[in-house]
């Protein structure tokens, strides 16, 4: 693509950009419905990373030679692209991490231990990915903060009345919740949550691992203090994640890891930290991955996030028209605002048996509890669920094929 917006949304042309979608597995065409775990990569991203390694690669922020200066400029251009992508005020607000898990652990260590005081509380919710729950349990055990869990409704939406109760005593220092559930597809009202948190004197962190892929994120409009997402779900490479953190918070936070790149000067006994965001980026960063992520952002922006959102909304509507008609199929959650993620269970098949069958049909779905064990307990789905998650290359025909396979699977186990 040349940066021109492609209109109308041409899913066939998009699919042609993804080499793996043309591949066959055991003689069957791949129906990839596991983009929520990790998305496939377009040729543009693959080629940009190869180009970087073949002709523009050196370590960054170190060499005084031309190749290193060029690599540094390319790496920093990726940071700037990330900042524009989520409408951050400045590229200095963007910390590059390894993935969203590391981004949230960075907040737990630096903000949690360095800024929050023992006795203050962190609020997470019942529908968090383990990556936005376990760090707060660890912080509680190691630092003496309290962990409060916000309930969800039976429809799978955040219970905002309960959130208000949890915030009422003014002791909450951080609200850490998902912007879109990786199991239920629920999109949470981020701006409202941030307003509630701020009025109670708390900061707010959004786990945007799913949301950033499916719709336009504007961290200033929702007034996020922290926003985490990852490259590999956004059609980019593994090994790179992003933490947006407001500049004032970055200044108040101590470093996360120590090492090269995060220092201004080092003595044998004492060192001076670099300015943010370098302060939080110890060691050689994911350079090739940053080039890949930059290209992935270019790719989705050329299509347009609103167009991607509209395409996925149509897929969700189609799935909601087709799937509930399947006898014995339970779809978890019924949120008003939901993205292209569906967890479901058949009444007569365990999630692992079902995924083995679907795999045989060429359909890749995730089975189990999707790193959200407490949520499955909460919704009475202890045997796990299968999860179909859509990407910009997903078609309505693939959803029809899933429906057909589910109907056959139920007969198989009858």
């Amino acid at each position, binding site marked *: 693509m040349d940066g021109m917006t492609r209109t109308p949304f041409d899913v066939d042309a998009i699919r042609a950009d993804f080499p793996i979608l043309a591949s066959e597995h055991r003689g069957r065409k791949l129906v990839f419905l596991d983009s929520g775990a990790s998305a496939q990569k377009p040729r543009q991203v693959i080629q940009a990373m190869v180009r970087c390694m073949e002709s523009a690669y050196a370590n960054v922020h170190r060499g005084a030679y031309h190749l290193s200066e060029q690599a540094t400029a390319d790496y920093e251009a990726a940071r700037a692209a990330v900042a524009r992508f989520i409408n951050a005020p400045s590229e200095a607000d963007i910390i590059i991490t390894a993935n969203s898990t590391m981004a949230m652990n960075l907040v737990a260590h630096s903000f949690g231990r360095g800024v929050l005081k023992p006795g203050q509380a962190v609020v997470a919710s019942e529908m968090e990915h383990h990556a936005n729950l376990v760090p707060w349990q660890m912080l509680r055990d190691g630092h003496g903060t309290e962990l409060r869990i916000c309930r969800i409704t039976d429809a799978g939406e955040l219970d905002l009345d309960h959130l208000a109760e949890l915030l009422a005593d003014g002791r909450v220092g951080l609200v850490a919740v998902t912007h879109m559930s990786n199991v239920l597809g629920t999109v949470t009202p981020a701006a409202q949550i941030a307003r509630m948190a701020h009025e109670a004197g708390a900061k707010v962190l959004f786990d945007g691992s799913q949301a950033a892929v499916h719709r336009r994120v504007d961290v200033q409009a929702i007034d996020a203090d922290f926003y985490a997402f990852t490259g590999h779900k956004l059609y980019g490479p593994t090994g790179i994640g992003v933490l947006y953190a407001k500049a004032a918070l970055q200044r108040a936070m101590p470093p996360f890891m120590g090492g090269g790149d995060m220092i201004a000067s080092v003595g044998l006994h004492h060192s001076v930290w670099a300015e943010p965001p370098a302060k939080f980026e110890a060691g050689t960063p994911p350079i090739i991955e940053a080039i890949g992520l930059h290209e992935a952002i270019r790719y989705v922006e050329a299509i347009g996030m609103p167009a991607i959102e509209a395409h996925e909304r149509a897929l969700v509507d189609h799935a909601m028209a087709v799937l509930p008609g399947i006898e014995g199929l339970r779809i978890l959650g019924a949120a008003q605002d939901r993205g292209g993620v569906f967890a479901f269970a058949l009444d007569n098949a365990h999630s692992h048996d079902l995924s083995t*069958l679907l795999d*045989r049909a060429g359909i890749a779905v995730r089975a189990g509890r999707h790193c959200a064990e407490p949520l499955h307990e909460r919704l009475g789905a202890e045997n796990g669920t299968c999860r179909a998650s859509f990407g910009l290359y997903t078609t309505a025909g693939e959803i029809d094929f899933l429906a057909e*396979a589910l109907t*056959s699977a139920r007969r198989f186990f009858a």
Partner: protein
Amino acid sequence: MFDDLRDLYQEVILDHGRRPRNFRRLENATHHARGDNPLCGDKMDLWLAFGDDGAIADAAFQGRGCAISMASASLMTETVRGKSPTQARQLGEAFRQLAMTGRCPACEAVLAEDMERLSPLSGVHEFPSRVKCATLAWHTLNNALDDSGQEARSE
């Protein structure tokens, strides 16, 4: 659509998966262990009651899991009855080989009849991610025989 999966999900498996035998708590148990497969959430409790002759007089289990893990546990409780601890462990070792390779070259003639009963599960060897479903019950059996009080993990 799924006819070629009948090798994995033979009628015996589906039957034992739906209606596992010996699916109960054993009140007079002498040995107990809990098995857990954290990756997929399968859990089971296994109880053994030994007779005066030193052999397993009764075996029973409760738990939740996929058809493969439930059927494997069900067939196991039927197969180990009357076995000494040594025989039961031998059978478990032979079964793990069968589940991982589809073959059991080490199966001696004395195990042949029991392995025949377990053979419907041999199809799992073609599904690497499902082998652990079939072997969880047997890992749990080893722990029950030790009665070490530890959880078995079929990882």
